[in-house]
């Protein structure tokens, strides 16, 4: 992404020339070329779209089907009966709505925390020389290699001793801690690529380190921050093992996260084999995500792009 900063001047010259060229008569060639190419492109894209959307359509259909239809019938056949009973069950008895909100709250706070602490650490590690810098950096990066489930038992004790079991505070802190390795790794690399001139100018103007970070570096790093934010949201949203270990104790049930809620349904799916309710819960939990993503897609894209164009 950095290399882009070294291509100024192009915009001044290239665009007009290109326009001229187009009007000069190679138009038809280009057009045919485009058609053949876009045709192929569309075929490829449509196939992949089908491959990704297919299973989801299957989930949607399955939420209306009986077990026999789900497991023995034609995968994409329409259900014999349409009834929203499974959805009411998922929403009512399984409290999918509440768990969804719990998840939203936890993920928002912990992602915000991850981004704040992660970028602070990454910034210092990327742009300041001091003793122990490399050590701390590699300490963080080594966390990438540590499989989370090995930590489950020790974590339980650590939180218990701190009195944080069954609390959102504990969960959020753990989420942040386990998201730091990749966040620091990614952002440190990113901060290194940002130009030093502006920062030096600010130093000359007497800006403090802290101000430089929040007012100059953060805005410049916007695209990196947005990408890693998405990484973290997705990762934390799908987390299952950690909340299972941490959200325990009396009254924890009302604090369950969405993944736990779905797991609870599938627990009973194992016994009663109510797969359609499981899939209904799934649809309920995916839909808002799809809608949010579809609405904000442009902003996300813009955010991801922003920093680099500068």
């Amino acid at each position, binding site marked *: *992404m950095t290399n*882009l900063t070294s291509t100024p001047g192009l*915009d001044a010259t290239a665009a007009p020339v*290109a326009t001229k060229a187009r009007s000069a008569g190679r138009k038809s060639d280009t057009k045919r*070329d485009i058609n053949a*190419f*876009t045709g192929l*492109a569309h075929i*490829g*894209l449509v196939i992949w*779209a089908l491959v*990704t*959307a297919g*299973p989801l359509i299957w989930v949607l259909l399955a939420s209306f089907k009986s077990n026999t239809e*789900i*497991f*023995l019938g034609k*995968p994409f056949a329409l259900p014999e009966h349409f009834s929203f009973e499974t959805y009411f069950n998922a929403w009512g008895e399984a409290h999918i709505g509440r768990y969804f909100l719990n998840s939203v709250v936890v993920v928002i706070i912990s992602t915000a925390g991850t981004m704040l602490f992660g970028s*602070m*650490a990454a910034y*210092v*590690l990327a*742009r*300041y*020389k001091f003793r122990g*810098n*490399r050590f701390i950096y590699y300490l963080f*990066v080594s*966390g*990438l*290699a*540590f*499989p989370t*489930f*090995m*930590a489950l038992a*020790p974590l339980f004790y*650590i939180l218990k001793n701190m009195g944080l079991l069954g609390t959102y505070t504990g969960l959020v*802190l*753990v989420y*942040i801690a*386990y998201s*730091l390795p990749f966040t620091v*790794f990614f952002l440190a*690399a990113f901060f290194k*690529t940002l130009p030093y001139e502006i920062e030096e100018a600010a130093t000359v103007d007497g800006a403090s380190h*802290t101000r430089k*970070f929040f007012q100059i570096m953060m805005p410049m790093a916007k*695209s990196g921050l*947005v990408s890693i934010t998405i990484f973290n949201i*997705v990762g934390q949203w*799908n987390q*299952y093992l950690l909340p299972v270990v941490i959200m325990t104790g009396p009254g924890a049930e009302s604090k369950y996260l969405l993944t736990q809620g779905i*797991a609870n349904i599938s627990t009973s799916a194992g016994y009663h084999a109510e797969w359609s309710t499981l899939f209904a819960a799934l649809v309920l939990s*995916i839909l808002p995500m799809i809608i949010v*993503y579809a609405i904000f897609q442009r902003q996300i*894209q813009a955010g*991801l*792009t922003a*920093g680099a164009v500068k």
Partner: protein
Amino acid sequence: MRRGKYPFIIGFLIVPVALYCTFVVAAYLQTFQLSLTNWSGLGPIEYVGFDNFVKLWHDELFWKSIRHNIFVLILLPIVTIILALVFAFLLNVGGGHKGGQTRGVWGSKVYRVIFFFPQLLALAIVAVIFGRVFGPDKSGMINGLFPADWKPWLFLADERYAMLCILIVLIWQAVGFYVVLFSAGMGSIPAEIYEAAALDGATRITLFFRITIPLLWNTVQVAWVYLGIAAFDCFALVNIMTVDRGGPNGASSVLSLMIYRNAFEFSQAGYASALGVVLFFLTLTFAALTLRVTRRESVEA
């Protein structure tokens, strides 16, 4: 750097480092310690030196699992990145240039939304869905597509293809995210560069290889590291989807599954920790190798 540099550094590092040490480092130090014991997970702890490591050296399943991990480690990043790059390219630049602007193919916004779907599903659910996709009889989605008189493919029940099936699911889930990531990178490549190149008679294929890829190289490397780490995991999929978890006959066993089963099912917490230590160093080696390559724009002296 002058004026309050150290207070600033400490101020910025103290919270993240404290959090990290409390919740992550402390936990893995304990794993290292346990790898030298024969602890069952219950009861007294007895130190046995490097016995666990000797044992795993002779464990056939361990070597099988390592091979499977390496198989995924090589293929998952390569295939995912290639697919994601191609799709991102089509979505952003594929539509050619009109009115002085390069654009994606028609409908690219819809594609972008659809491609992202798999990211929204928890892996456990993905595993259930693909259990049906790879159904070994005619009710399976893929087998159902074939003519009725074909012998159905066994997919996960066939030792030769079990691991490949897992790989396909991993790729399926990952591609969408990297399409978005690469799209962002491509969006930030000034259109003029493409214009200029197109003027020189470059085809789209050339554009892709001569402009897009080099300019996106940093992003690709990050993707590589992330996918590599994901490749070392793939626990949930193998655990839920495969025959006899890791079977048939170990044909789909991976290290993370071995660790999990030894720790939580076979009451071999010590052995599991030893496997965890091995996995840790393997991942670390991989990350270090990748970092070496990525380091080229490092500022440190």
